[in-house]
């Protein structure tokens, strides 16, 4: 009698927990839909007025021009993509090297200390990174290329790269730590050296987790705003060199949203929508490719 009542109680508690957890999970996931809905509502005046075409056909972005207003976002999509790509190109090798060092080479105290420092780096506000970039990285670039503005694709890539470096390093380390020790012992048993074991056993096994980390870093980099707005130069153009200024979409929204009147504001909402869709497609494509080429390998 008592035991069956306990079971019933347990079951209803269980059901309650399930409902609460489910609700919270769906709220967090549903936030994305809510944000997209909000963006759509804000962008609607421009979409209804048929301005979306100009978004992709206009060559320039000069919404404030009276003589020749243009609303092209292609240069800014290119800017967002290039600066994100450059950041990953800079951060991935360094982050991976850090993770391998932490997992296989570093003495415990050094690993602990260095990992804590990287966790701190994640917490540094973006605007501090941006200011640091403007005051330290940009003058250094001007010394290398004195005829260029300094605020550039390169400056943005370096600052963003530094911001996503700890994300890549820490998630890669977690992925490497999840590699079963039996595998590593087996490799040692076969007489493989440490470098060979890392290269042929640990890294391929941890690939899924490392890719997840890179995706997370990519998504963070493409949406980053306060740092890039201070160091990228914000000129909407297709760059011809690393030293040319570029304008990511996020910069445009940050620079102009507070100052825009109705029709211009709707276009900025459109730009935000385009960025969200672009990120979704990009991340979707990457995870699709990952599942395709890498079946059965779990994430971190």
């Amino acid at each position, binding site marked *: 009698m008592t035991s069956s009542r306990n079971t019933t109680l347990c079951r209803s508690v269980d059901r309650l927990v399930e409902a609460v957890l489910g609700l919270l999970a769906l709220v967090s996931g549903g936030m994305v839909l809510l944000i997209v809905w909000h963006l759509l509502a804000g962008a609607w005046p421009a979409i209804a007025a048929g301005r979306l075409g100009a978004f992709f056909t206009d060559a*320039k972005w*000069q919404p404030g021009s009276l003589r020749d207003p243009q609303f092209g976002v292609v240069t800014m999509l290119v800017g967002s993509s290039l600066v994100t790509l450059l950041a990953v190109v800079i951060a991935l090798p360094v982050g991976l090297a850090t993770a391998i060092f932490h997992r296989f080479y570093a003495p415990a105290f050094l690993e602990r200390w260095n990992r804590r420092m990287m966790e701190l780096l994640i917490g540094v506000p973006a605007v501090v990174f941006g200011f640091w970039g403007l005051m330290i990285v940009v003058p250094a670039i001007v010394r290398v290329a004195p005829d*260029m*503005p*300094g605020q550039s694709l390169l400056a943005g890539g370096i600052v963003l790269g530094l911001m996503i470096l700890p994300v890549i390093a820490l998630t890669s380390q977690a992925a490497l730590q999840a590699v079963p020790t039996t595998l590593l012992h087996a490799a040692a048993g076969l007489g493989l050296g440490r470098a060979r074991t890392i290269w042929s056993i640990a890294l391929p096994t941890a690939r899924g987790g490392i890719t997840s980390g890179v995706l997370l870093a990519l998504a963070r980099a493409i949406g980053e705003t306060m740092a890039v707005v201070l160091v990228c*130069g*914000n000129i909407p153009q297709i760059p011809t060199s690393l030293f040319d200024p570029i304008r990511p979409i996020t910069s445009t929204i940050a620079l102009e949203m*507070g100052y825009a*009147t109705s029709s211009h504001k709707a276009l900025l909402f459109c730009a935000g929508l385009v960025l969200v869709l672009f990120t979704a497609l990009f991340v979707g494509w990457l995870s699709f490719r990952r599942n395709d080429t890498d079946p059965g390998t779990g994430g971190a």
Partner: protein
Amino acid sequence: MITGSSTVAPVVADVAKRYENTHPGTRIEVQSGGSSRGISDASTGVADIGMVSRALTDEEKQKLTAHLLAADGVCVIVHKDNPVKELNKGQLIDIYTKKVTNWNQVGGADATIVVANKAEGRSTLEIFVHFLGLDNADIKADVICGENLHVINSVVSNPNTIGYVSIGTASAEAGAGTPIKLIVTEGVTPTMESVRDGSFPITRPLNLVTDAETSPAARAFLDYLMSPEIHDLIEKHYFVPVR
């Protein structure tokens, strides 16, 4: 509720603080967001008073009344180490349209000029472009900045940069030891005095705007803003009180 120009907001916030101290029970909320927001919020009634750092257009004048709070100038700045001291309107047009691209063409050292511009919608941009008689699309910039401080920091981080900011901000920063120099334009040195006597060519009015229905409480605060009692606060922000 008061919204609008980020140039005017800090002064009005200071005045509001003093007003709240002397008038217990009054709550004044000041939010910045640009002159355009000041116009739209004041006309839709979202805000009791709007802050607008430019002259009103004829269309705006039909709906809103402007109350002149103070005057501000927009001045051109370069790095302190740049030997150039003076640039006239023609030279500025050439620089901002990239007809002139080296500092040695305007009396400086042999170095490429880096042109810093403001982002769309900023009233400093509108006033500067209007002074030069150009359209936004004519300007060929190397760097686009949001805030005045971003322009100043760009000049500091690359000494070949030319930019333009509010005289108030520029004087405050130069006074605090930031290595920038205010450029003499059309023969007039940008100072509080030259803005006050009207001789400086690039100035703008800092306006407060209200629509037809102003609440008595808002009206009372507006009167306080217009009174000489707060001139010290206006000068503290490096603007020039009018009257």
